[in-house]
C-alpha cells in the first residue's frame, strides 16, 4: 500500500501548490464575478427565460474557465517540476514515474473539483435569489412557475468535474511527451476543441448524403475522440422539469471515467520513456 501513500502525498502537494497560485484565485473570482454580472445583463436576452440566461452564463463560465484552469495548471505543474529539476530528485527516491504522474493528475483533478464546487455554489446562490423574484412575478401574473432543480446543480457539478477530468488527463497525456510548455498548451486546447466538436463528426458519419469512404473514416475517427458534449446538459439537469434519466447519468459518468483512465494510462506510457 506504500505506492498509494506516495500517490496521495504527491497529489496533496500538487493540490496545495496549485491552490496557492494566483491564477486559480483569479479564475475563481472571474467565474464568480461573471455569474453575478449576468444579473445586470438580462435585458440583452432574447426570447429566453431570465433564469436560463443566468444559468447559461454559469454553465459557460464553469466550462470555459474550468478548461483554462485544467489545461494551464496541468501543464504548468508538470513542466515546473521538470524545469526546476524537482522531478529528478523525486524520481531518484523510490517513487515510480507512474506514481509521480498519477499523483500529479489526482492533485489537479482535486483542484478542479474545488473549482467546480465553488462555481456551482455561486451559480446556485444567484439562481435561487432570482428564482424567488421570478416566482413572485409569475404568481402575480398567473404564469407557470419557473423550474429550478438544486439536485440537478449537484449532478451538473459532478458532470463538469468528470468533463474537466478528461481535459486534465488529456493535457497530462500531451505534456508527458511534449518538449515545450507552449506546445503542450496549444495541443491540449486543440484536443479540447476537437472533443467538443466530436459529435459533429459523428453526425457527418451518420448522414446519408456523405460518400461511403468518408463516412467510414469519420465514424472510425469518432471512436478515438471523447465526446465532451455529452456533459453539456446543464439546462436539462437544472432548468428542465423532466431532467435526465438515472441510466443516462450513470452511463455518461462511466463513459467519462473510461476516457480518464485511458488518457492517464497513455500519459504514463509516454512518461515512462521520457528523458527528464
Amino acid at each position, binding site marked *: 500500500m506504500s505506492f498509494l501513500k506516495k500517490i496521495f502525498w504527491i497529489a496533496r502537494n500538487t493540490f496545495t501548490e496549485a491552490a496557492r497560485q494566483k491564477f486559480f484565485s483569479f479564475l475563481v473570482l472571474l467565474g464568480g464575478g461573471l455569474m453575478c454580472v449576468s444579473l445586470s445583463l438580462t435585458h440583452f436576452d432574447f426570447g429566453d427565460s431570465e433564469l436560463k440566461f443566468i444559468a447559461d452564463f454559469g454553465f459557460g*463560465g464553469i466550462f470555459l474557465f474550468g478548461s483554462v484552469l485544467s489545461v494551464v495548471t496541468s501543464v504548468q505543474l508538470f513542466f515546473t517540476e521538470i524545469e526546476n529539476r524537482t522531478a529528478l530528485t523525486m524520481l531518484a527516491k523510490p517513487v515510480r514515474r507512474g506514481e509521480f504522474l498519477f499523483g500529479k493528475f489526482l492533485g489537479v483533478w482535486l483542484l478542479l473539483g474545488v473549482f467546480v464546487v465553488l462555481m456551482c455554489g455561486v451559480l446556485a446562490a444567484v439562481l435561487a435569489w432570482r428564482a424567488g423574484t421570478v416566482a413572485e412575478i409569475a404568481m402575480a401574473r398567473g404564469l407557470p412557475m419557473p423550474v429550478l432543480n438544486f439536485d440537478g446543480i449537484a449532478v451538473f457539478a459532478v458532470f463538469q468535474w468528470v468533463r474537466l477530468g478528461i481535459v486534465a488527463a488529456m493535457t497530462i497525456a500531451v505534456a508527458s511527451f511534449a518538449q515545450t510548455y507552449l506546445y503542450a498548451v496549444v495541443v491540449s486546447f486543440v484536443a479540447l476543441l476537437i472533443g467538443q466538436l466530436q459529435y459533429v463528426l459523428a453526425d457527418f458519419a451518420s448522414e446519408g448524403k456523405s460518400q461511403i469512404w468518408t463516412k467510414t473514416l469519420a465514424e472510425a475517427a469518432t471512436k478515438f475522440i471523447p465526446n465532451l458534449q*455529452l456533459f453539456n446538459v446543464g*439546462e436539462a439537469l437544472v432548468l428542465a422539469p423532466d431532467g435526465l434519466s438515472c441510466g*443516462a447519468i450513470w*452511463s455518461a459518468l*462511466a463513459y467519462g471515467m473510461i476516457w480518464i483512465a485511458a488518457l492517464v494510462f497513455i500519459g504514463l506510457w509516454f512518461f515512462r520513456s521520457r528523458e527528464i
Partner: protein
Amino acid sequence: MRFGAAILCLGIAGALSFPFGEIAWKEVRERVGTFSPEALERSAGTGIALGTLGGFRTVLADIAWLRAFHFWGKRDPVDCMKYCDLAMTLAPEQLFFLENTANYVAFEFPVWEIRKRGGFLQVPENVQREIHKKALAEALEILHRASLADPENPQIYILAAQLTAIKTDRIYGVPDYAKSAAYYRRACECPGAPLFAFASYARFVGEHVPAERASAKVFLEACRERAETPARKHFFSELLTEYFASPANG
C-alpha cells in the same frame, strides 16, 4: 511505436466507452441543439467553434442577434442574414430568432431590394412581385428547415401560415388560402397546438377553400371527440357551427 500504442489505447477506450456513450447520448443529443453540416456551412465557422464551448452557446446567440439587428438597421441583408443564421444555428430552440428572421426575409429584405433598384415607382410591378415571391419562398424555406429539426412544433407551421396569408393577401392580390390552411392544419396536428390555430384553420377553410371543407369538418369533429374538457368540446362545436353549419350535436 509509442504513438501507435497510444492510438491503440484510444481505440480501446473508444470501443469500451461506446455503449455507455450511446445510452447517454440518446437523451443528451436533442438537448445540445442541431449543428448539422449544412448549418456549419451556412454560418460563420468561428461562431460555431466558440458556441460549442459550453453554456455560452445561447449567450453568443444573443450577441449574434444584436449584430444581426445592427445590420438590419443598416439595411444590409447579406450581413444581417449571416448573423441571423448564426443566431438560429447557435440556439435552434429559440423561436424568437426563427420568427424574426423569417419576418426579415419575407417583409424587410424585398423592400430593401426594391429601394436599392430605384424605388417602388421605378421598379415595374411584375418585378416587384417576383422579388416578393422569391422572398416569401426563402422565408418558407427557413421555416421548412426548422420544421425538419423540430417537426412537432406547431409554432413553426403557424408562422408559415401567417406569412403565406399576409404576403399573398396584401402584396399579390391573389391570396393562396389553401396553402395557409394547409400550414394551419399541420399546426393543428401537432401536440399542444394553440386553440387559435384551429380557429384560423376553420376560418380559412370555411370561408375560402371549399374543396377542403369536408376534410376539415371531419378533422374538427374528431378534435371535438378527443377534447378533454367540456370547454374545449364547446370550442370545437362553436367552430363547426360557425364555419361548417353543423349543429353541435356531439
